[in-house]
């Protein structure tokens, strides 16, 4: 019932002895024309890498609002911006975007392609790598260039080890963990050009409807501050009230442990840990979370960890920078109040 799978041409199996690229391509993820912060972080880092390699930075922005996102991108150090607002990109899942990205990669030639390590970035990066027969590194937290060689560092096994990998061949795809680099505005040529529609393509996954449940909220993987609740918060309500208020006061997002998600108190997209998301925020506040290994692997690389728990002997006390022992239902709202008062004084 199925036509034979397309095979890569045989030359894609010839192993190159090196990875000699100069240019860097960055995929800019955006929400209706607003570039995601991780995209700007990657664009900023790309300039540094391209400078070390002696090449330039090409950004690819796709879908509805791409033109607007390209305008904002001009404040960042990119040399060329390739744009398409083809409606197929949003009407069909992933395939059109991969086609455009592949066309852009082939037009630019051998290069390092940086995508965000997000749901969309992983999807695009993995498919592009397969198309190009390229190596890929994921959940990358650092990229270095030494003697023209690009190396990507990624935490593995829940951060218990960090591997550093180089690429072989003409292209290398690196999926970058949000909050790994700083978004630094700087002048770039920023010339905008429209990508041509790849010819002869059929798209097979129809997007029937998009349902937005948390408009304007930053995902936990991208937020610089995450306030998470666990079993100790005892129900769904605190996620919408005291935890949300504290997250808002700190400009952060609300996360959760597996126990809270499995109890149905909050949706899976908020889950931090082994079967949820692995994140590296600046500040992680764990509220009523014991900090079992399955949770720890998702947040151990946060810069600062603060825990609030009624029990002084919970595992999180072994690796949190500060564990405050007390009643979370009283401490959290009080903390929100004090942070707001502090912000008002220093405003």
């Amino acid at each position, binding site marked *: 019932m199925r036509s034979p799978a397309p095979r890569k041409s045989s030359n894609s199996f010839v192993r190159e002895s090196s990875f000699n690229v100069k240019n860097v391509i960055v995929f800019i993820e955006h929400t209706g024309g607003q570039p995601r912060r991780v995209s700007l972080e990657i664009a900023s880092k790309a300039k540094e890498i391209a400078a070390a390699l002696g090449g330039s930075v090409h950004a690819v922005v796709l879908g509805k609002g791409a033109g607007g996102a390209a305008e904002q991108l001009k404040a960042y150090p990119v040399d060329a911006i390739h744009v398409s607002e083809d409606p197929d990109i949003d009407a069909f899942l992933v395939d059109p975007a991969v086609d455009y990205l592949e066309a852009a990669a082939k037009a630019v030639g051998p290069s390092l392609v940086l995508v965000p390590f997000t749901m969309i970035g992983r999807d695009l990066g993995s498919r592009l790598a397969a198309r190009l027969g390229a190596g890929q590194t994921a959940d990358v937290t650092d990229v270095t260039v030494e003697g023209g060689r690009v190396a990507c560092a990624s935490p593995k*096994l829940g951060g218990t080890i960090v591997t550093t990998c180089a690429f072989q061949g003409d292209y290398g795809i690196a999926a970058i963990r949000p909050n790994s680099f700083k978004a630094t505005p700087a002048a770039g040529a920023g010339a905008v050009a429209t990508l041509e529609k790849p010819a002869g393509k059929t798209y097979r996954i129809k997007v029937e409807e998009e349902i937005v449940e948390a408009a304007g909220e930053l995902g936990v993987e991208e937020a610089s501050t995450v306030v998470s609740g666990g079993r100790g918060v005892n129900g769904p309500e605190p996620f919408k009230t005291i935890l949300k208020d504290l997250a808002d006061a700190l400009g952060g997002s609300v996360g959760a442990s597996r126990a809270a998600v499995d109890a149905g108190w909050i949706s899976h997209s908020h889950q931090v840990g082994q079967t949820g998301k692995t994140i590296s925020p600046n500040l992680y506040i764990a509220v009523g979370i014991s900090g079992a290994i399955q949770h720890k692997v998702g947040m151990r690389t946060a810069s600062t960890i603060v825990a609030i728990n009624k029990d002084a002997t919970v595992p999180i006390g072994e690796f949190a920078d500060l564990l405050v022992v007390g009643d979370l239902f009283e401490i959290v709202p009080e903390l929100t109040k004090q942070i707001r008062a502090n912000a008002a004084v220093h405003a």
Partner: protein
Amino acid sequence: MKIVVTVKLVPDTTAEKRIDPATKRLVRTGVETVLNPFDEYAIEAALQLKDKLGAGATVTIVTLAPESGKEIVRKALAMGADDAVLVSDAQAEGTDVWGTAYALAHAIENHGFDLVICGTQSTDATTGEVPGALAEYLGVPGITYARKLEVEGTTVKAERETDNGYARVSAELPLLVSVTKSIAEPRYPSLKGIMGAKKKTIAVQSLAEAGVDAPVGTQGARTELLTTVVPPARGKGEIFEAADAVAGAQKILEFLRERKLV
């Protein structure tokens, strides 16, 4: 309908990890190995479809693992899968995302399929990039992050998680789907299932027998492992017994101010 579920064998999250200085890779022998927890959701999704579709639907497990992993694969058969293909080859050692997806694609194609179901990612490498690459090599559409899955005739309807909600998507078979943990709670193997699994077939194939026509191990890898390091463990911080809410909140605020986080 032929349903294929890909699984990976991973070291248990709580197991002690050791790096072999020569290969710079994780020592996997002597470490407790389990079915990748994400893949149990994929198995459950496949079994629920099989339950609905009835006779004629089969669930085959496909994995790339050492032969010693056979008994772990048997757990998937005990849950209710019909049979398994275990691609085991010394030449596959050191495989990367590209090699894994490429080898799995050939083994799956050899077996034949209408629907491939994957877990979102593995708990060891955590790349989450095999499902997408696998869809490309199989030449079929791939729906990732599905939290709900329905098959009507040859049409698959899915709810796909997004960063701020979900999307309803549809596509025609043959197809690849990766599922999240929201799809269904994996079942425990019943005693009958465990007994029955002993009689089920686990076909062990070499890379050549699986039809893999290019080197996929360290030799064929598109990435080269330079170093593996164990980062310093997070030290124990301060534990503060709060006399009341005001004292607890003050302590945290002071701490955040010291670190310039507020």
